[in-house]
C-alpha cells in the first residue's frame, strides 16, 4: 500500500471538514459530543492523510466560490436535461438508442478535479464515464454522433471543464 507524506496543511483541512460533518450529523453541542467529535476527527484525518491521495487545501478558497456557484448552476441544468432525456427515451416504445464507447482527452491534472468532471459527465444527458486512464476519459455514449476525440470533447465535456480549469490550473 502506498504511504503519502504527512503535511500539516492537508491534515488541518481534513480535520475541519470531518468535524463539520460530525456536527451536521449530531446537531447538538453537549460537551461529551464535542469531545468525541474532536477525537474521532483527529484519528480519521490522520489516517486519510497518510493513506489516501486526497484532501487538497485548494479545493475551497474564497476566490473560487463564485466559480463553484456557476458550476453548480451549469450542473443543475445539465442534470435536469439528462432526466428529461432519460424519461423521453424510456417512454418511447421503440427505445431510440445508438450506443458506443468514445474517448477524449482532458487538460486537468488534479485528481479531485478529474473525479468531479467524471461524476458530472455521468450525470449529464446520455453519457456514462467508464474509466479514466491517466488523462484519457472513456465514455459510454447512448447516442453516438461522432468518434473524433476533439468533437467528442466539445460535445460532452467543454462546459464543465472550462470552469474547472479556471479553478484548478
Amino acid at each position, binding site marked *: 500500500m502506498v504511504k503519502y507524506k504527512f503535511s500539516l496543511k492537508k491534515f488541518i483541512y481534513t480535520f475541519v471538514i470531518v468535524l463539520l460533518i460530525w456536527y451536521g450529523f449530531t446537531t447538538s453541542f453537549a460537551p461529551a459530543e464535542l469531545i468525541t467529535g474532536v477525537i474521532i476527527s483527529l484519528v480519521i484525518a490522520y489516517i486519510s492523510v497518510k493513506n489516501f491521495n486526497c484532501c487538497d487545501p485548494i479545493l475551497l478558497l474564497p476566490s473560487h466560490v463564485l466559480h463553484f456557484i456557476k458550476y453548480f448552476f451549469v450542473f443543475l441544468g445539465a442534470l435536469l436535461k439528462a432526466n428529461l432525456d432519460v424519461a423521453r427515451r424510456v417512454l418511447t416504445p421503440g*427505445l431510440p*438508442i445508438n*450506443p458506443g464507447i*468514445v474517448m477524449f482527452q482532458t487538460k486537468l491534472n488534479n485528481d479531485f478535479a478529474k473525479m468531479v468532471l467524471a461524476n458530472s459527465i455521468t450525470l449529464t444527458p446520455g453519457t456514462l464515464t467508464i474509466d479514466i486512464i491517466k488523462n484519457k476519459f472513456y465514455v459510454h455514449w447512448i447516442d453516438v454522433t461522432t468518434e473524433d476525440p476533439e468533437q467528442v470533447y466539445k460535445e460532452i465535456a467543454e462546459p464543465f471543464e472550462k470552469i474547472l480549469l479556471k479553478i484548478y490550473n
Partner: protein
Amino acid sequence: MDIIHEILKYIGLVFILIGSIFLFLGALGIYRMPDLYNRLQAGTKASTLGAMSVILGVGLLQPFWLIKLIIIIIFIGFANPLSSHALARASYRAGIKPCCDKEIDSYGKAVEKQLKKIQKKLKNLTD
C-alpha cells in the same frame, strides 16, 4: 410566518411528487433497456435526481431536519455516480461487451494494453 410555511409546504409536495415520478422512470429504464451499460445510464441519472428531489421536498416540509437531509443529498450526489462508474468498469473488465448493431469501442484496446503491461510485470517478477 404562517404564509411562508404554507408556501414551503406546497413547494415541498411538488418536489416529492416529481422526485417519485423520476424514481419510477429510472426503475422502468432498468427494466426496459437492452444491455447493461444502457441500464446503468437510465438507472443512475433518474434515481439520483429522484432521490435528491424527494429528500429536499421532505426537508422543505420539515425545516428542522434540513441540515441532515442536505448531508444525505450531498452524499448521494457524490456516491451514486461513483458506484455506477465502478460497476461499469468492473463489468467491462469481466468481459461483458456493449450490445447492439453499431460497433464503436475505443476502450477495448486500452484495456488490452494495460493487461499486457501487467502481464509483463508479472513475468519480470517471476523470472
